[in-house]
């Protein structure tokens, strides 16, 4: 089996997704043996993109000219581009305040130094380049990352389920926080794969994995409103990990 050459990069994000890889302690020797890791600033001293890459795995949103430069360079030198994590796929936490002025936001944080900053609204990768595959999650699940690497060895991508968190939640026989406790659980709208981590310990789904296929956003909104939550509270909860919900969407 030919060893795939991979690059792992981080743009505007917290590095948590890349850490997910480093946290696969048991599997790291196997990964190091099966792949040639050519570019991985978080884990290698050598920091150059040297030649053609089979798979580039990119964490984070694009919010600076240098983010864009790295992304373009990777896209131009790789066969497959994999978006790693919610920021890369949906904008994520970094994009939470995208409807507010970037200039004002920068000013609030950096004061007068903000004028020097070259920053724009954080955007997911697909706004700029074609992505071939995505692993969602904030941070992504170890299992999905490893399954992706294993599939890449065979020259393919894995198939992940496309149902919402509720399905895993029900299969685990959790108490439904939405129905039984009238909590603002985002489970019905959010991509599964986490095995309902939060509801399993009594915490409502915060939506960190981003929208599920065919999310019925309008019906969930109606349900929350009927339960008495104010619209602005719902919207603010929903856009924590994804700012671009279409609140009219039904399928």
């Amino acid at each position, binding site marked *: 089996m030919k060893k795939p050459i991979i690059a792992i990069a981080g743009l505007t994000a917290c590095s948590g997704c890349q850490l997910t890889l480093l946290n696969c302690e048991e599997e790291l020797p196997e990964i190091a043996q099966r792949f040639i890791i050519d570019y991985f600033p978080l884990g290698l001293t050598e920091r150059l993109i040297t030649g053609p890459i089979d798979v580039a795995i990119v964490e984070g949103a694009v919010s600076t000219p240098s983010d864009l430069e790295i992304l373009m360079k990777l896209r131009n030198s790789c066969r497959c581009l994999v978006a790693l994590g919610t920021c890369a796929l949906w904008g994520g936490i970094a994009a939470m305040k995208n409807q507010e002025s970037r200039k004002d936001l920068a000013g609030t944080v950096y004061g007068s130094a903000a004028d020097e900053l070259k920053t724009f609204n954080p955007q997911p990768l697909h706004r700029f380049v074609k992505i071939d595959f995505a692993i969602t999650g904030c941070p992504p699940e170890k299992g999905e990352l490893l399954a992706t690497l294993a599939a890449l060895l065979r020259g393919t991508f894995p198939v992940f389920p496309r*149902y919402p968190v509720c399905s895993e939640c029900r299969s685990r*026989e959790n108490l439904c926080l939405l129905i039984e406790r009238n909590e603002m659980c985002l489970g019905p709208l959010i991509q599964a794969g986490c095995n309902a981590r939060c509801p399993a310990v009594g915490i409502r789904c915060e939506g960190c994995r981003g929208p599920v296929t065919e999310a019925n956003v309008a019906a969930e909104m109606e349900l929350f409103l009927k339960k008495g939550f104010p619209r602005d509270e719902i919207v603010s909860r929903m856009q924590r990990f994804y700012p671009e919900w279409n609140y009219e969407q039904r399928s």
Partner: protein
Amino acid sequence: MTRNLLKHDSIADFLEILATFGELHGPVLTDVGVSAFRPLGPGIDLLLDYSRTLVPPKKYLLPPRDTVLFFATDEGYRQPAAAVPETILVGLHPCDLQGIAYLDKVFMRDRIDPLYRARRTALTLIGLSCEPDEYCFCGDLSATETHGCDLFMRRSPCEFHLRSNTPKGKAILDRLTPILAEGEPLPADSRTCDMAAAIQQASVRGETFEKSALWDEFAGRCLSCGACSLCCPTCYCFDIREYGALDGETTMRLREWDNCLFKDHGEVAGGFNFRKSRQERFHYRYQHKYLGFGPTRGIVSCVGCGRCRVVCPVGIDLLELFKESEDEKRP
């Protein structure tokens, strides 16, 4: 007169004897307050008064996520070793027994599923009579004591009347004799339910409610959360996926619960979808549940347990279709 009466205060002894036949499981209230089938043991209370568990007993036959095949380059395909422990499921309501009887038809008739059969053979079913609540609509299903269970417990104010239906059940009953009293067998109670009758009639006439406005209404509200099928004792749809291991050599094939209201359910290679819209998917669900298709054509597979009505976050209830047509008939 036979020894078939179990006094309510002998339940602990009863469970102790049952446990000698295998791993004992039954309905309990979990820490988070969900009724669920779980292993029983000292300090764990068997629920004798419960309406329904969240997830039906089908999980013992078809686990939510199950490895069904392994592959290795050097040894080819291999089935998982079917070392299934003898399991005694106690406290099953008639609807759940009927649910298992239906799954038996699907998985053990014309094409036998080896994993299902191994698990089913290792299962002893002990039924328990119930009182319907506002979500139930089983009709006289509940009156039938057999439904393929090995032993049935019919409850009366001071005792349970036991009846064995199979050699397995008889063996258990024999061992229970020391703690049983003599009594007359209780006549099976009969229960009528207008909804169950309306469903039977609609099914016989092949009703599809094509013109109902409810389909669009359901489709507009459904969140495709999956609960209605995952929690249904007779929904058996599954998806198959394969995941390779990092060694590049071995692979496993998973079987996982599916729901016909998911987009993927009718999707095939190339992205073509047999049921693109939620409306179409609701028609499909209706047809499978109430008319049946393939080898189960003509069998109403809904056993009236009411779970789908309880677990739907947006209150979708297919029974409204039948109610609507009843209303139309009224002058």
